[in-house]
């Protein structure tokens, strides 16, 4: 959270002057450069991440608005090539990751330019339409207005069904906000409507953003550099802990369409043209749709396939974090676990030094640090628990 202008050096220059990144390089016996061992750093970051996610209920059906600040401040070049370009690039990656982890949720895009907030795309479930719309509108000018953005988003989010979780993610480059009225009132309105607002700042910490996030239960963070920004942004992809009173539990009617036979000609309801084969048939009104998940344009039924629901089951049945274990050759009880159970990589380093590895608390199998990260972040199955009845 430091200012970018310190000592007259830009952030990228300080990496050479202060941090001396070349000193962390090492040579091996033959004089060749050894790759920097980032494994323990990644593992420590990953341990920090999972410590915060306890086994609490998560909001699985999310309606998220991403507010992109396209004011004058977004053309600053402290993020190469410009803040706006970096933000757009990472939003694309975030949108894909978001739909991968939350297949039943929807995203909408809003931009702030010249003091006004405009809706770029409506709430929808198709990643490509959002990305295309954003890439077409990357110009910045004028001031930034937080209140206008919040008012706009508030209006839209009030129309969504009561079982959905309402969220806003603001990517704020400016250091100020020019508002037409009392922003504190707007913040209270958002709090009353149960909208969870989070902000990722690109310049410095601003009190009003901190206040907004505290009032609505969101998270506020400021990015130090591009990779930090990417990390902070992707933290919003998994479902946040659900505040129980925020969404009302409801039974949602959904359809599970069958895939239409190859060679059948029908008019598809999304593109309004005749298509041959492929596609899915809505079970209620028999209209043809091209892809899932989607809402049938004719009768409004939400159409999903069972894998889409299964994608979210791992949020409901998480595996416990593994315990850190230090292996040493001298311990007779640990002699049987010389290799990682998942990838068979040897857990011992030559020289009798104790290695750091992890063990599952349920099945007691040992895993290497890389498998630990992969298992908890992507696979969501413990190979040890699954391999024994």
């Amino acid at each position: 959270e430091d200012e970018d202008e310190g000592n007259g050096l830009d952030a990228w220059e300080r990496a050479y002057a202060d941090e001396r990144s070349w000193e962390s390089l090492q040579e091996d016996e033959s004089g060749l450069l050894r790759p920097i061992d980032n494994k323990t750093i990644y593992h420590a970051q990953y341990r920090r991440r999972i410590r915060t996610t306890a086994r609490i209920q998560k909001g699985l059906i999310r309606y998220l608005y991403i507010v992109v600040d396209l004011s004058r401040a977004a053309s600053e070049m402290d993020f190469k090539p410009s803040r706006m370009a970096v933000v757009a690039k990472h939003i694309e990656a975030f949108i894909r990751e978001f739909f991968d982890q939350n297949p039943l949720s929807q995203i909408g895009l809003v931009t702030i330019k010249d003091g006004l907030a405009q809706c770029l795309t409506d709430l929808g479930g198709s990643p490509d339409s959002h990305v295309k719309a954003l890439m077409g509108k990357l110009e910045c000018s004028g001031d930034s207005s937080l209140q206008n953005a919040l008012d706009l988003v508030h209006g839209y989010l009030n129309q969504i069904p009561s079982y959905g979780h309402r969220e806003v993610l603001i990517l704020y480059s400016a250091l100020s906000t020019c508002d037409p009225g009392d922003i504190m009132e707007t913040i209270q309105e958002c709090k009353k409507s149960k909208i969870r607002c989070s902000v990722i700042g690109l310049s410095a910490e601003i009190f009003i953003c901190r206040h907004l996030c505290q009032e609505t239960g969101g998270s506020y963070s400021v990015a130090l550099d591009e990779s930090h920004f990417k990390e902070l942004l992707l933290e919003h992809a998994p479902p946040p802990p659900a505040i129980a009173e925020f969404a009302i539990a409801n039974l949602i009617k959904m359809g599970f369409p069958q895939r239409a036979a190859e060679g059948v000609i029908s008019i598809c309801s999304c593109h309004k043209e005749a298509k041959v084969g492929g596609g899915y048939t809505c079970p209620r009104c028999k209209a043809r749709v091209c892809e899932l998940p989607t809402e049938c344009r004719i009768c409004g039924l939400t159409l999903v396939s069972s894998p889409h629901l299964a994608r979210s089951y791992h949020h409901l049945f998480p595996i416990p974090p593994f315990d850190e274990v230090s292996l040493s050759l001298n311990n007779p009880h640990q002699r049987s676990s010389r290799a990682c159970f998942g990838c068979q990589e040897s857990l011992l380093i030559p020289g009798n030094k104790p290695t750091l590895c992890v063990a599952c608390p349920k099945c007691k199998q040992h895993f290497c640090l890389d498998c630990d990260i992969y298992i908890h972040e992507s696979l969501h199955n413990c190979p040890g628990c699954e391999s024994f009845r």
Partner: protein
Amino acid sequence: MAPVPSKLYSDDVSLLVVLLDTNPFFWSTASLPFSKFLSHVLAFLNSILLINQLNQVVVIATGCNSCNFIFDSSSVPANPNLENGRMPALCSNLLQKLEEFVTGDEKLSKEVLAAGIGSSLLSGSLSMALCYIQRVFRTGPLHPQPRILCLQGSPDGPEQYVAVMNAIFSAQRSMVPIDSCVIGAQHSAFLQQASYITGGVYLKPQQLDGLFQYLSTVFATDLHSRRFLQLPKPAGVDFRASCFCHKNTIDMGYICSVCLSIFCKHHKKCSTCGSVFGQAQSDGNSATDRKRKTPET
């Protein structure tokens, strides 16, 4: 974790991870004897290693009580004495470890299953295969293109649904295709979905005596060359869901917005998470003892 593009290694080098079903309950009643099956598979594995010098084969056994690595073509052969002139070292190494595995697996059997054929631990071997493949990705830009081949005969175990789906999605994200060759009597819904979602090939051979021919014509090609071949296409993968209350296949149903359980009729309360519909749920319902329910497809 996205894999490094393997264009830096020749396009047609493969890493084939074979998941071999060794469930004794299935093999005791199978039409093809296990020994004949093994001879087809060993010939096939040999042919993979012959196609390209850099190809790698790993075999994982899927038992009914445990799973384990049986063979890795890239590891140094441990026992050259096993090459007794009648069998190459590959076969004898593999067979020896397989025998050890099957004996160990049988010892773990707690009780004899009374009805039907028990399922094998497909989710376990899939998870182990994926962890191994991640290790290969970590070795740097030079690595073979991995894929998984499931030789499965036992029926699907509904209690493994969530774990198998997790493995399938992880394979899809890492772009690892899962091919399936089903040797049992009935189709496997899990493997049909796995192959469809990950872009692999699903096949249920009609004549098991010619298994080697099916394996070598359909499953031996590397991923790059598959673009030029007409491989069996999926015919009608059923993505409809089953309701949690009756296990019937439904095409329209009701989903609990909290836990995504599927019901065929309107209920007042969700049986999985306990949320009462129509009013804000209280915190006490966040389930601490929920087991993995078995939604079948």
